[in-house]
């Protein structure tokens, strides 16, 4: 069993350039709010806008993570062209954890290490009182401040 130490919390450089005053969590909430305003074909390539229920779930998830002391801000927050919202945490050596919300109320997690097959699992929205159950996968994941 491999143990990965996540060095999370670095927010997007581009985003930091555009909104330098904001902390990473704040920045991600601002980004999430902007997803409500997205319209179909927001990217000019036919991308679908996320449903409001999907963004609601993303808000609930981000809020739950923010309140948890062991979880750092995601490395990025994305509205995908297929209409889902994706949170990504990334380590300096390229290991990634994605939480994707494609439908309201359900979060799909995917852990991917460079050059290996990804590991998947699904969960309903996390209980705020409990630690995130990332350790359920075949790879134990812990969090550490960057």
């Amino acid at each position, binding site marked *: 069993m491999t143990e990965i130490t996540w060095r999370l919390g*670095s927010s*997007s*450089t*581009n*985003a930091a*350039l*555009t909104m330098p005053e904001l902390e990473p969590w704040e920045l991600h909430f601002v*980004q999430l709010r902007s997803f409500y305003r997205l319209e179909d*074909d*927001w*990217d*000019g*390539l*036919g*991308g*679908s806008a996320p449903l409001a229920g999907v963004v609601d779930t993303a808000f609930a998830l981000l809020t739950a993570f923010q309140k948890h002391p062991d979880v750092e801000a995601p*490395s*990025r*927050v*994305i*509205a*995908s*062209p*297929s209409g*889902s919202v*994706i949170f*990504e945490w*990334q*380590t*300096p*050596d*390229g290991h*990634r954890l*994605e939480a*994707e919300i*494609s439908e309201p109320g359900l979060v*799909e997690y*995917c852990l*991917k290490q*460079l*050059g290996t*097959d*990804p590991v*998947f699992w699904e969960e309903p929205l996390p209980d705020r009182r409990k630690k995130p159950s990332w350790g359920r996968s075949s790879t134990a994941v812990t969090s550490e401040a960057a």
Partner: protein
Amino acid sequence: MGAVVYGRDFRSRLGRFIHRLIAFVPHMSEDDPIGPDEWLLRRVPNRQPDYFNPALAVPVASAAFAPTKYDTDGISFFRELFVAPETVSMSGTKPPYIVVRLRSSGIVALGMTPTATPDKAGLPGHVSLPELAYIPKPTEGERKRQTGFRLGLVEIAVAVIVPTAV
């Protein structure tokens, strides 16, 4: 503007000429199979700041390879032998786009089959990736398979054009 476009496309034509010399191919058309050494270009949305972050070890977001409802034959790439990255960046309805480049052999090594699908109405050198075709209601297995492909593609993608965020 025309001269600039000519300059961009000239680079691709020169690349094609060199490729033909090396491969002993007298003529090359958009229908020809894609060589393992060819570079394929992909447009990445520039409307959200997190799609490309050079500070991260894997700078490109996997969502850059997610199909839209129009990608029924698979997501689109363009052969660099037929079109320049600058032209790809400035195409589409909301340019400029970020452009990333992937080696064809790298995509094949991930288990996918880049296929030449010329589109007379669009940019030259159009390529589809059928493994990442739009599926209206994907099964859990299909969704995981596509996510796995997307996460693999970002590991071999190299940004060649990063315009200022729109």
